[in-house]
């Protein structure tokens, strides 16, 4: 009986994980998907180098990095380590759904969160400057949740 109960429990866990993973994979199949309200697609994304995305995305009113964002920033740090002479600007952005001044501060915070993460991977802060554009430079000008998720971003731009 005890053994049976254990199997039952394991089955329940297995089934629920299957369901959960089914959900997340379903979302990732389209090119313009979001998870929660963080953009996870590839439209609007550019590349610093092959396989190194130039930007990370944020949830509404939030400056926390997602797992995917950390992965992108690690790859960027790796790229910067290999290209010692390269300096970058981290541009912070917000969507159009906040007050202008708060968005300037929020976007500055987002850019710095990304910068700090790269610094923990050994990139000198001197190589990364930060600028906030608040809601002033959207990449997608539509007034839709998808556009807003693409606009809540921190973009790493090479300094020429």
């Amino acid at each position, binding site marked *: 009986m005890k053994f049976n109960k254990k199997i039952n429990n394991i089955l329940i866990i297995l089934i629920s994980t299957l369901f959960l993973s089914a959900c997340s994979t379903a979302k990732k199949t389209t090119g313009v998907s979001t998870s929660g309200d963080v953009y996870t697609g590839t439209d609007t994304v550019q590349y610093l180098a092959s396989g190194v995305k130039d930007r990370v995305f944020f949830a509404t009113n939030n400056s926390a990095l997602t797992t995917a964002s950390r992965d992108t920033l690690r790859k960027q740090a790796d790229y910067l380590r290999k290209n010692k002479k390269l300096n970058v600007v981290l541009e912070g952005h917000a969507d159009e759904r*906040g007050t202008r001044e708060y968005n300037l501060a929020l976007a500055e915070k987002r850019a710095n969160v990304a910068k700090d993460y790269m610094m923990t991977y050994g990139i000198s802060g001197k190589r990364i400057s930060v*600028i906030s554009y608040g809601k002033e430079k959207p990449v997608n*000008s539509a007034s839709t949740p998808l556009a807003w998720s693409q606009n809540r971003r921190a973009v790493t731009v090479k300094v020429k």
Partner: protein
Amino acid sequence: MNKLFYIFIIFFFKFNFAYSLIEVNITRGNLNPLPIAVSPLHVDLQSDNYQDIKVKELGGLISAVIEKNFKSTGLFNPLNKDAFVQKPDIAHLKPRFEDWSLITAQALVTGKLLMKDDKLKVEFRLWDIAANKEMIALAFTTTPSNWRRVAHIISDKIYERLTGETGYFDTRIIYVSEAGPKTQRVKKLAIMDQDGENTKYLTLGNELVLTPRFSPSNQLVTYLSYFRNLPRVYLLDIETGIQEVVGNFPGMTFAPRFSPDGKKIIMSFAKDGNSDIYTMDLETRLVEKITEHSSIDTSPSFSPDGKYICFNSDRSGLQQIYTMKSDGTSVKRISFGNGIYGTPVWSPRGDLIAFTKVRAGKFYIGVMRSDGTGERLLTENFYQEAPSWSPNGRLLVFYRETKSGKDGKGFSAKLWSIDITGYNEKQLETETDASDPSWSSLLSK
């Protein structure tokens, strides 16, 4: 500005406040506007170049500006001039009150002007039709090019006499003029008279500029500029055009406003992901840190006596409004409703704080008392924010953006004003799209 503009006010009749019967109730909004007749100003035949069309028509132009001002308040109903039976010069000497009362006028404005030796002399009188009495008589002498300001000053005097409140017509609004697609917006500082006339552009649009605010004397403007891609707080002298950076800290400075005495600028300084509020004394350049918190503290605004500051902070998790003493002590949260609250602005009377509120995907402009009680939402829309008070504390000007379609089309930004009663919401005329308005104080104090 005032240096250029000398007004000689000659009181050639005594005020007779005691006899007034008309009183406009400003708390009722536009429910029952007062019928007022604004007679065209009579142009004195002895004026230089009387035959010049510019001189001949000036009387009509001045009265048209006054009428437009009155109409915009929602408190007055300027009557159609076709119904006027008395000639302007005769009405100005002695109105036939029965005739004016027949066309339902309760108040009458008459006046005359004389153009002599490159000086414009304007006199006007306000009459109470029911009481058969003169309420004010004033005369102004100025340079002819200032005729619009004379019209605004006359409007203010009449408004003050009829409502018991200070006027707000002889004022200007500074704002950000916008053009181009949303992803590449070109922004310039622009200034205009309160009625949308006399627009002038103060920057060329080469760099992004945001959030201009007048100094109490209206001579200076502080704003955020991305000059050389370094977002910093700047100061601009409107007359000389001289600009200087005042917030040259090692990071972004933004959200600037003047202290009520004009001696300090209060602003946010963002560094390493944290925004706090600072003041800078414009004379000594002494910088003081006012808030110290790991959260975002921004959009500061002094109380009119300079003793308190309101600001928004997300220290509770989401944006809320706080007040504190001007040295940064006694911080108190005052907004507790559902939703997030931002851009608090202390009313020039000191009793109210105007704000932007976001709740369930809608943006509201509202007012609450400075202790956070008595919250009233005045207007709801897809996106609107950044209220700025008229100098008499009766109106708010703010900007509103429309929802854009999937391709970004259909986007616009315009200035709007609303009475704090919630009545008389209207769009301000601007030459271009516009945002971030800031209302000046009265130009002639």
